[in-house]
């Protein structure tokens, strides 16, 4: 909420990513308006909001897949604009909405593509993939399949493996469980939470599901009409909603039968 690092942030770790007064226009339509937020290392954030509220746009700005119309983005205290864009992207693991595996490559080749470019020795690549497969509980024979022969959940895990391959300290996950059935989704959420904590990474998960946010994240940011309306724990969202919109957002999800 605050563009200057608050004092308590130092207790939790240093600021990794900082967006101040960022705006983004597509033509005349304003998608982000004066968006300000900072993200600290080793913390898990949930980015919440209605469909079309600009959640994916924020991640794309952080990856420099889009350029902001105004404001500033800092990564490790350095302006994004002044950084080498390829290095920035390799420092961040990004899983996009829908996974984004390349259909012409096997899962293994998808996962290894950047490591191959960086000329990792084949043995190191193999070991790293084995390690990640174990982490994600992926059976080895699945690795040699092409994406069209994987289930949605399997593909999603492969995408995560690709994002984790270079062991980046930032993970940006755009609705990673969007296409999964409730049980698989629940299982994956349960598995990933301790994993993220153990890996000690800054993770930003985009979702519009409060439940998912509560399982996965330490802190939530709710986006509405291009700006942050509330930031904090989900408990605070329930007990002291900042605006009427927050109240409705929370209520609507509780009203879904079985949606908790």
């Amino acid at each position, binding site marked *: 909420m605050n563009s200057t690092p608050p004092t308590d942030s130092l207790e939790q770790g240093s600021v990794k990513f900082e967006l101040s007064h960022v705006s983004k226009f597509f033509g005349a339509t304003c998608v982000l308006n004066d968006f300000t937020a900072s993200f600290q290392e080793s913390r898990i954030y949930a980015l919440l909001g209605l469909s079309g509220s600009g959640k994916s746009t924020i991640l*794309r700005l952080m*990856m420099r*897949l889009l350029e902001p119309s105004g404001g500033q983005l800092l990564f490790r205290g350095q302006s994004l604009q002044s950084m080498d*864009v*390829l*290095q*920035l*992207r*390799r*420092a*961040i693991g*990004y899983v*996009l*909405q*829908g996974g*984004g*595996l*390349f*259909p*012409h*490559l*096997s899962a293994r*080749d998808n996962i290894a*593509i*950047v490591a*191959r*470019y960086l000329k990792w020795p084949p043995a190191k690549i193999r070991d790293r993939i084995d390690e990640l497969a174990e982490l994600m509980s992926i059976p080895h024979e699945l690795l040699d399949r*092409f*994406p*069209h022969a994987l289930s949605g959940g399997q593909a999603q895990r492969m995408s995560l493996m690709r994002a984790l391959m270079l062991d980046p300290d930032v993970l940006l996950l755009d609705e990673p469980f969007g296409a999964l059935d409730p049980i698989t989704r629940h299982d994956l959420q349960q598995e990933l939470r301790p994993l993220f904590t153990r890996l000690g990474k800054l993770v930003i998960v985009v979702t519009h599901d409060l439940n998912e946010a509560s399982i996965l994240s330490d802190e939530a940011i709710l986006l509405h009409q291009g700006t942050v309306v509330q930031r904090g724990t989900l408990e605070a969202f329930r007990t002291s909603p900042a605006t009427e919109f927050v109240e409705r957002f929370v209520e609507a999800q509780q009203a879904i039968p079985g949606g908790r």
Partner: protein
Amino acid sequence: MFRLTLFYVVLLGLALVPLHPKSASVTIGSKLFTESVILGECVRLLCDDAGIDTTHYRELGGTRILFDALVSGDISVYPEYSGTIREEIFRGELETDELIHAALTERGIGLAGPLGFNNTYAMAMLRTRAAELGVTTISDLARHPDLKCGFSNEFMERQDGWPGMREYYDLGQLSTKGLNHDLAYRQLQLGQIDVIDAYATDAKIAALDLVLLEDDRNYFPRYDAVVLYRVDLADQHPDLLRLLQSLEGGIDNAEMVRANALVEMDGKNESEAAAMILDETLGIQPEVHQESLSDRLFVRSLEHIDLIRRSLIPAILIGIPLGVLATLFPSCGRMILGAAGIIQTIPALAMLVLLMPLMSAFGQASVGTGSATAVTALFLYALLPIVQGTHTGLKSIPLPLQHSMESLGLPLNYRLLHIDLPLAGASILAGVKTSTVLTVGFATLGALIGAGGYGQPIMTGIRLNSTALILEGAIPAAIMAVVSQLCFDLVERSYSTTSGRRT
């Protein structure tokens, strides 16, 4: 990157390795009609007999193509007509023979001949009808105002044709109609018309027993057959000049008519007709060896594949990068695609004639088997489908995948090679397939400038009105097109079932 470079070098090597090293020291050209091919064969057989190494590029097209090729040195000898040299090559600007000789010498060209016959326009009548009326000269026609004339449309319109002749010989009272040349012969035979225009050495003159009326007041310009040759070549082969001169004056109109009839009426080939002329005029009996159908097919297939190889492979090597450029830089892409599109609309003959001087300027063979002109034209025609296939393929990669590949932080060239191009592979392959099938067909047009391949029998077949010869070229060309299409279909199928190749 190393693998890509290797791929390029290997393909480029495949494209550029010459199949048949040029060795013949004398190249003969001939025009796209029987008489010219026979005379070309006469020169070839004479040279053979004297042990001079030759190639004969037959049916190279018209005066412009042959004369330019002679001046640029792509051919060294070809048969021509005095009237054509005066009217077409020098556009009637040079009045006297001396001026014409000087102008030719200036271009390094010598003239041997005349060979003896004069293939000008003439008036022809059935021998019986002419005898019955006592007509032997054109002037005699004025005494028979009831005669009916059937003239070719061209002759009716040319200022030096009927309009000029009517005035010159005062033939205003004759009734005339314009009609197709073949039809004119038929109606003459049936007695429906009495007089037609004809070339003086037309094969049908002997076959239909016609007489030519004497041009007693010398209205028609002379079209004496001569041989044009490069002076530098004659310096290298003093024998050659002697051989050409040995033909001078030996071939009269009747001889040439018989030779033409041998080919056009009796189905003999031009070599046999040429052998007959040499036997009857010089007493030389050259060896004429007949190639079997399978020999001919084999040689032409090689020539055809060679044309395709040397044009299509460079088109792939250049077309794909052009397609990539067009996608990366949309404004320059519009230009590239526009230019490739415009090239497609240039008619083949125009393209060949436009390219010839350019090829000569670069020191490449502008005519003849596998000439640079034909290869370049095919290359240009093959570009568009490949550029377009690459462009479309790259453009139609779904946006999420584009974001996905961008987000990996890979440099552009690595990305293109390992992700973009394989993803666009199906579309690129479709473009290459279209180009290949097109080129197999288009390559037959190379025969317009003697490029060889399956087009050559098609050209001869059209000239001699022989369906068998046309099919001899058309069937293998069609088979090659279908086979290449099938091969590509197979590759496409394996491509889509494995979802692509592995890196």
